[in-house]
């Protein structure tokens, strides 16, 4: 039920990654971690303290880090690379493509500071194209969890998945609202709240924003079905088709370019199987800029009020 979805406080998704990695250090001896001079930012210190022999500091050399990770995977290790999302994808796309994805290496590419909510560092670091780049690679799994608990669970879950994974998370403190110690199922959409008038499919930080939007809409008598798409690839097509059939119109919400993001994946599914009126809340072919995360989300059209407006537009198109 929508009213039961409440924040228990703020923690960053990157802290969730650090906690998940720390736990993996205790449970899976094949897990090794690599970092390109961002240990503090990626919250990797607890893992390193426990497992100094299973941590490799690569320095500011991300291309080399991806290649080394591929080599470690050949030797049977499960490498987790850590750096910012920009340097985890765009900077090293060819290394990931050839040495990891095409070669089917069991590397977990863990990427922090994704999206506008990176904030003050500005557009050089606010990558908004990473999901698109990664989902285009054959065999790559793409995951964008929504809060601390889900990021921790996803980090633990991907160690058991055989194959390359892109795990995207962020910098700011963010509401924690999913259950602690939940089980994370790769590729399985999570129904947060049932509804009848419109479906909101959201991913990452914007899942919480969608919860806020759904509450506003509920106050106006509009019933939203709220679905957390933490795994963008492989996409839970059955859940998307079923909910679109049920409500008759959909909105997607994400902290990413419209081109290449969750919205375009959902549109492909609906276009093929269940043509449905659809509105996309995403960055519209633009770079970001410096600023506070909340201000940036508002300026670039990713706030709760934007989701509310998109839902109303989608409902209007149903007739």
């Amino acid at each position: 039920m929508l009213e039961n979805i409440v924040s228990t406080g703020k923690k960053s998704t990157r802290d969730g990654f650090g906690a998940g990695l720390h736990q993996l250090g205790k449970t899976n001896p094949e897990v090794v971690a690599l970092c390109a001079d961002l240990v503090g930012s990626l919250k990797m210190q607890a893992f390193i303290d426990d497992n100094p022999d299973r941590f490799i500091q690569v320095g500011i050399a991300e291309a080399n880090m991806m290649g080394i990770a591929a080599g470690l995977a050949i030797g049977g290790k499960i490498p987790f690379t850590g750096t910012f999302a920009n340097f985890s994808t765009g900077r090293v796309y060819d290394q990931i493509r050839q040495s990891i994805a095409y070669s089917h290496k069991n590397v977990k590419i863990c990427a922090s500071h994704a999206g506008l909510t990176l904030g003050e560092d500005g557009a050089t670091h606010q990558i908004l194209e990473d999901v698109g780049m990664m989902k285009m690679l054959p065999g790559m799994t793409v995951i964008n969890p929504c809060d601390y608990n889900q990021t921790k669970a996803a980090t633990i879950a991907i160690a058991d998945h055989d194959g390359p994974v892109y795990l995207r998370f962020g910098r700011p403190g963010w509401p924690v609202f999913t259950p602690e110690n939940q089980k994370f199922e790769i590729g399985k959409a999570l129904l947060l709240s049932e509804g009848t008038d419109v479906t909101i499919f959201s991913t990452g930080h914007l899942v919480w924003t969608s919860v806020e939007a759904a509450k506003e809409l509920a106050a106006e008598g509009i019933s939203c079905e709220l679905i957390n798409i933490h795994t963008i690839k492989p996409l839970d097509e059955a859940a998307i088709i079923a909910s679109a059939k049920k409500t008759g119109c959909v909105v997607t919400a994400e902290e990413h370019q419209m081109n290449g993001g969750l919205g375009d994946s959902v549109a492909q599914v609906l276009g093929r199987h269940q043509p449905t009126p659809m509105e996309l809340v995403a960055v519209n072919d633009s770079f970001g800029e410096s600023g506070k995360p909340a201000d940036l989300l508002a300026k670039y059209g990713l706030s709760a009020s934007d989701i509310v407006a998109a839902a109303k537009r989608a409902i209007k198109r149903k007739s």
Partner: protein
Amino acid sequence: MANIEKLEQITSQVRRDIIRMVHACQSGHPGGSLGCTEFFTALYFEVMDHNNSFNMDGKNEDMFFLSNGHISPVWYSVLARSGYFEVSELATFRHIDSRLQGHPATHEGLPGIRVASGSLGQGLSVAIGAALSKKMNGDPKIVYALTGDGELQEGQIWEAAMFAPHHKVDNLIVTVDWNRQQIDGPTKEVMSLGDLEAKWLAFDWEVMHMNGNNVKDVIDTLAEAKTKTGNGKPIVILMKTEMGYGVDYMQGTHKWHGKPPNDELAQRALDQLKETLGDY
């Protein structure tokens, strides 16, 4: 003791395989393949402790990584001739539905290949990762890698070159095919490598030299390199070769880097190379 005469016979057959493979599909890279024939033959028939039943993880055996993947013909020939797959499969090189892709790949499951290569500059990093996994696994075997010299123009090579001494990756023997040629011409004209030995020394590698077209020198140098492993430093061997070695009209020029011979020139090449193990 290595039987040099026998290894030289193998190199003649491998060169025939290279010419026939690139001629049959009218594509591929004969120049660098011919130049590195002694190196590959020595590595697979004498130097490495390897298992031709092929396990991807390479545990408890030596591993080899080819970073300059375009010289796949020589690698495929040597893998087939040393029992990784049927020699007849060499006839499928670069054809559709083949495991012998233009550049080496794991995607089709060809035994002997552990990572795709072709986009240059990546193989040294992968080899370092494999060498680190051996250390973590308590596996005393060695990782070998080959890079081109033109390939050293890629920045990732120098990221890897900085990493390996810092982390004391001393179970790694890298060879640079120093043929001084690349697609657009001599390296000194396209992008000078400068003092190559000084560069690797400055990065704190153990640097050695060898004549890559003398099979005995290759075996002796690799044996000496092996004695230098485990001493806290990675090892690089600057291997002088002649691109196109063994085929008179291809030798010492960049012009046959990525060009196959026509029927007449293929025959002229084969006339210079004795069929010692039987053509596929």
